[in-house]
């Protein structure tokens, strides 16, 4: 009996050793070490040498207060802000100059590039691991992410050339003959209104190139597109997101407002005017203003203010010039009455929320 206990304890010890071995020598260490080594060898003066020597090998993260999250991409892409690494190979390549308008410290990396920001291994961060399939958006593909926040026509065409080309291609090949996008198009093929949310770009790319290779028995024809064209169509499809993914990158406060708004939707079958006891919004309006509510309640999914927002409804940048507060209030209370047959949905907002929204909209002149 003693012998058995001894041997099995030995096996347990070995298993524990395996656990330790499994957790040691993380992948990112080698990239950071290589980074400092190269930086040291390329240093031109003592200050740069001292900088390279004083760097620590550790997990790094960008703390994004507005998005209420952290991103650790810079653990491996440590040279993202080092101009000396502009032409080095990934992961030690400096980011191109676009960052000026969207500093990573504020926006992070995944807002534009996708991927899993919390992970620190290539497999998992680039979405090829077991947990998540979120391959990152590189190069042109990152253009798709602009539409997480910005309206389709507000972006300069040269910055989103691939998307524009992709949209042209979708029109040229009459994709809408079979597919439906935002309520328009045929019903032969699946609805593509949220293609970017449902699928990764890798899937969309492979499927656009050869549908039968991804979905056996697919009746979709193979369009003889060039590689670049397939990429452009893919980028365009990536811009088609469901409402939640559109909200994903909004600032935290707006997202909170959105959540509270969702919680407040009446139960199916209930009438529009709910009893006051369940009027959750009563206590909430003190925490956020009409501006947050505008984004949170989903207004910005259809309406544009300035250069952010959707294009389903009219832009509201100068709405106060067209409608006064009373008008707006009536409209928000019952859109059907003011704009019969219009697309504007009944939002079931309570008194305070309407007042907050009207207050905000009245400032837009």
């Amino acid at each position, binding site marked *: 009996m003693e012998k058995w206990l*001894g041997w099995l304890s030995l096996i347990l010890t070995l298993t524990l050793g395996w656990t330790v071995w499994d957790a040691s020598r993380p992948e990112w260490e080698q990239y950071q070490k290589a980074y400092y080594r190269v930086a040291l060898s390329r240093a031109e003066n003592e*200050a740069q040498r001292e900088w390279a020597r*004083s760097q620590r090998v550790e997990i*790094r993260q960008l703390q994004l207060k507005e998005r209420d999250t952290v991103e650790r991409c810079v653990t491996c892409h440590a040279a993202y802000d080092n101009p000396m690494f502009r032409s080095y190979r990934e992961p030690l390549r400096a980011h191109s100059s676009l960052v000026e308008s969207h500093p990573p410290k504020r926006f992070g990396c995944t807002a534009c590039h996708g991927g899993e920001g919390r992970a620190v291994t290539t497999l998992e961060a680039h979405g090829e691991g077991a947990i998540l399939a979120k391959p990152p958006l590189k190069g042109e593909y990152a253009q798709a992410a602009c539409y997480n926040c910005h309206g389709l026509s507000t972006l300069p065409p040269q910055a989103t050339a691939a998307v524009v080309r992709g949209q042209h291609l979708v029109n040229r090949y009459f994709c809408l003959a079979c597919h439906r996008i935002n309520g328009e198009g045929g019903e032969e093929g699946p609805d593509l209104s949220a293609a970017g949310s449902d699928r990764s770009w890798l899937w969309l790319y492979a499927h656009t190139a050869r549908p039968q290779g991804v979905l056996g028995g697919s009746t979709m024809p193979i369009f003889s597109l060039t590689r670049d064209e397939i990429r452009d169509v893919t980028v365009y499809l990536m811009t088609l997101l469901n409402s939640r993914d559109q909200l994903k990158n909004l600032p935290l406060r707006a997202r909170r407002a959105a959540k509270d708004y969702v919680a407040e939707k009446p139960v199916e079958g209930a009438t529009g005017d709910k009893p006051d006891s369940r009027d959750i919004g009563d206590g909430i309006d003190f925490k956020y203003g009409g501006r947050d509510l505008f984004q949170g309640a989903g207004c910005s999914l259809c309406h544009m203010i300035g250069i952010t927002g959707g294009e389903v409804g009219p832009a509201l940048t100068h709405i106060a010039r067209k409608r006064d507060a009373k008008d707006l209030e009536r409209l928000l209370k019952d859109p059907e009455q003011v704009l019969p047959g219009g697309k504007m949905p009944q939002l079931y907002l309570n008194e305070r929320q309407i007042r907050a929204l009207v207050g905000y909209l009245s400032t837009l002149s």
Partner: protein
Amino acid sequence: MRKLSREEFLTWLAWSSAGLPAALLGIGSFRFLVPNLVFGPPTMFKVGKPRDFPLGSQTFLPESRLFIASTEKGMMAMSAVCTHLGCTVARVEWGFQCPCHGSKFDSSGRVLAGPAPQPLPWFKILQDPDGQLIVDTWRPVPRQTFLKLT
């Protein structure tokens, strides 16, 4: 020392062989509790471009609790955390004063009066390849260590 019998030795061996993985499990569990990351302010961070700190200026960074000064001798970074019990010191005419327990420091951080046991530490200040200044709060440096900008 009495000699162990074979049986006793085996017993001893069995118990201690079970003790080894138990100890490993304990150490591993403890390692689990040591965080690899902090969600507070980082210990090594960029404070800004040198031109944000013109010659002769003294800047207080409230979030990192640091003073950055630019003098003719170069740039320096000094902690604004009182060495007594960790309150943030305030800049006054003759140096720095802690509002909590009245410690006083001169303009280079030396203790003038009060309960503070040590002077305010100076930190290593470096220049990043992109030109920004970096402060490393894990590396105190001797007083009067300046970064000469070229």
